[in-house]
């Protein structure tokens, strides 16, 4: 049986050259579909990547009970030290807890294309950098504690106006100069950072947004959480940093992913009709050849399988071509959506999604023609001109 499938399919593929343009309908149809799908998904993928990179399973974030975002959360000055000295928090070589009080605020910006946008401005406490080994200064210097200074991420510097060293950012009660540029390789690249305590005073705020801690080990989360949730003085939610950013990422990418899927499905339907058309035509062109094989004793199943196989191979070729185009056009470029700045990514996983998408279309588009090919009475097909 397998041998029959092999022989019939091989025969198919050898005759493809004669049906080149007809077959190109499937290749181009799925190429366009997958190219568009992956181009759109390169945004959600890149954004997801940036958020996932931000979350570290060895860290935990503490926000006020039930808060969905750092912006909604508020941790009082009194609560912060209790959280930072809780069991489960790692200590540095001086015995100080590796934990940081953080501030978060929306910062209105002008994008380079002239439209208005928002990004996040973050406050780092004394342990902010120690907590994040991924943080590197790439130009200028670090902001000084107690001074009204900011540093800018590489992504924010690329995407927004007036974000070079020496530029000033308007904040309540004064303008703060940018003194350095940093990179973290994650979502923080699109943001700005200043000193938590100085920002707190300038913004007339009385509370932090969150506390970030390094756990003694990844398994220490439960100890840490238990210590905080059983403390009646605190009303907080403890989340592993990586899980926190998975949730944030889902919120941020949701709408874009839906749009990508909708466009992808509509195009796939269009490609499906093209695929059906081509495979019906292929089956009818090869009617005599198929009938001859059947007359020689080949089964109906190998014939049907060979038709579906052909449609899948063409579709996958198209999908790979489309993925290649999507990769060339998008991969590595800086993208922005809402408050997020990230690198567009056409990952192997995405290519895999595109290929499976194409295989589904090819299966659907090859099935009916394959049944027709297998069912056609041999004598009638042999007689037909």
């Amino acid at each position, binding site marked *: 049986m397998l041998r029959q499938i092999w022989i019939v399919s091989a025969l198919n593929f050898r005759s493809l050259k004669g049906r080149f343009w007809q077959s190109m309908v499937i290749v181009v149809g799925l190429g366009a579909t997958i190219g568009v799908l992956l181009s759109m998904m390169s945004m959600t993928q890149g954004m997801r990547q940036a958020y996932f990179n931000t979350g570290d399973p060895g860290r935990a974030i503490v926000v006020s009970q039930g808060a969905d975002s750092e912006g909604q959360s508020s941790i009082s000055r009194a609560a912060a030290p209790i959280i930072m000295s809780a069991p489960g928090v790692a200590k540095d070589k001086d015995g100080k807890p590796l934990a940081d009080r953080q501030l978060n605020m929306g910062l209105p910006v002008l994008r380079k294309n002239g439209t208005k946008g928002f990004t996040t401005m973050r406050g780092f406490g004394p342990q902010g950098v120690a907590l994040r080994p991924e943080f590197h200064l790439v130009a200028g210097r670090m902001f000084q504690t107690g001074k009204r200074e900011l540093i800018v991420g590489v992504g924010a510097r690329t995407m927004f106006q007036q974000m070079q060293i020496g530029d000033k950012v308007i904040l309540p*009660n004064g303008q703060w100069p940018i003194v350095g540029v940093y990179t973290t390789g994650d979502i923080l690249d699109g943001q700005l950072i200043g000193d938590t305590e100085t920002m707190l005073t300038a913004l007339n705020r009385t509370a932090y947004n969150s506390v970030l801690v390094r756990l003694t080990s990844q398994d220490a989360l439960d100890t840490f959480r238990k210590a905080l949730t059983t403390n009646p003085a605190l009303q907080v939610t403890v989340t592993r940093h990586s899980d926190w950013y998975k949730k944030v990422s889902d919120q941020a990418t949701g709408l874009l992913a839906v749009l990508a899927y909708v466009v992808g499905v509509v195009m796939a339907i269009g490609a499906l*009709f*093209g695929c059906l058309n081509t495979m019906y035509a292929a089956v009818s062109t090869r009617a005599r050849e198929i009938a001859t094989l059947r007359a020689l004793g080949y089964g109906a199943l190998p014939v049907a399988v060979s038709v579906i196989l052909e449609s899948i191979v063409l579709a996958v070729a198209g999908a790979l071509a489309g993925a290649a185009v999507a990769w060339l056009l998008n991969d590595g470029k800086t993208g922005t*959506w809402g408050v997020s700045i990230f690198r567009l990514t056409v990952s192997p996983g995405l290519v895999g999604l595109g290929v499976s998408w194409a295989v589904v279309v090819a299966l659907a588009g090859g099935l009916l023609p394959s049944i027709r090919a297998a069912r056609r009475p041999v004598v009638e097909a042999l007689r037909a001109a």
Partner: protein
Amino acid sequence: MRHLPLVWAAIVRKPMRAVLTLLSVTVAFTLFGLMIGLNAAFDTIAERARADRVYTWPRYGGSAPITVAHQIEAMPGIKAATGLNFLPGYVQDPKNQAFVLMVDQNAAKVFGDWVPPDQWNVVWRERTGIVMSRMQAQRWHKKVGDTFTIICKTIKRADGGTTWTFRVVTIVDDIPQIFNGFIFGNFDYIDKAKPLADQGKISEVDFLADDPANSTALAAQIDHTFANSATPMQTITEKLARSGNDFGGLDVKKITFGIALAGMFMVLFLTGNGIAESVRERFAEFATLKTIGFSDRAVTAIVVLESALPCVIGAVLGVGLAAVLARQIPKLMPPTFSMPMPTMSPAVMLWAAAAALAVAALSAALPVLRLRQMDIASALSGRA
């Protein structure tokens, strides 16, 4: 057109091919309509945006003292300024988000194009009066005279209450810039009901410039004036705020046209291949036509017509389907995220017609060339 019977006969000879081609073309044009229609909606918004209207609000959220509005109105070059407050909340269930824009009487000047002046007067007459745009009236099933109650947990009344009751005194048409419609009410009603310490605060100032050419400079001037104050302001002209390509930072034009083009490219291969095959199958027949005196022009017309028919019909069906689907989009969108409804404007139809004809012409080009150069004798004998 007299060749239509010939063309029709050619198409129905392979009904499966005809139907599948038409379906594929229809789907591609549905996508085309939705994409170009979305872009057209953004374009309309950008066009309708007024160059002389400017928005300014506290850069870091929260509220500013109402004196900011007075200060701005007193600046030279400004016609009128209105201080706004937002009343965000929900109707009955937290899922049903809604908000009312609370404005003072200067709004009649600043937003005279949203709500006609006589309708503004109807609002001013009643303390709890609100004007709803049709879309909002439809969403909450309200007609003139109905009460409308919003629950707002963030803005407290002096008596501690969280519900705000209004009466719909008039309903007006929507404007394209505001995707989900709007509701305006009296600033004083909310302001005076708040605790004394919270009164006299605004969350936005909107104003008209005397000279549209001056509005960008005025915006910069206001940012500069308040930059070092306790409430730095963020100012933007309506023109800039609504300039297309402002969909979360995406370049709408590039993306919509890119997707539409990809769809057309897909279809081009399908129809081009279809017509080439159809001509190849009937090569001898075309030779016969030429023999009995059909000119090259007539033969060309037949092929072009055969290739144009599915493109044009598909374009009409596709754009029609897109128009139907577009109307469903607002219902499917989460209320917190607004996206303009794709509009099938004359420009969109023109684009669709151009695309359909381009696909038809490109598809027919090679077969036509082959037919013109055919050697009739060998074609008739089936040797070509």
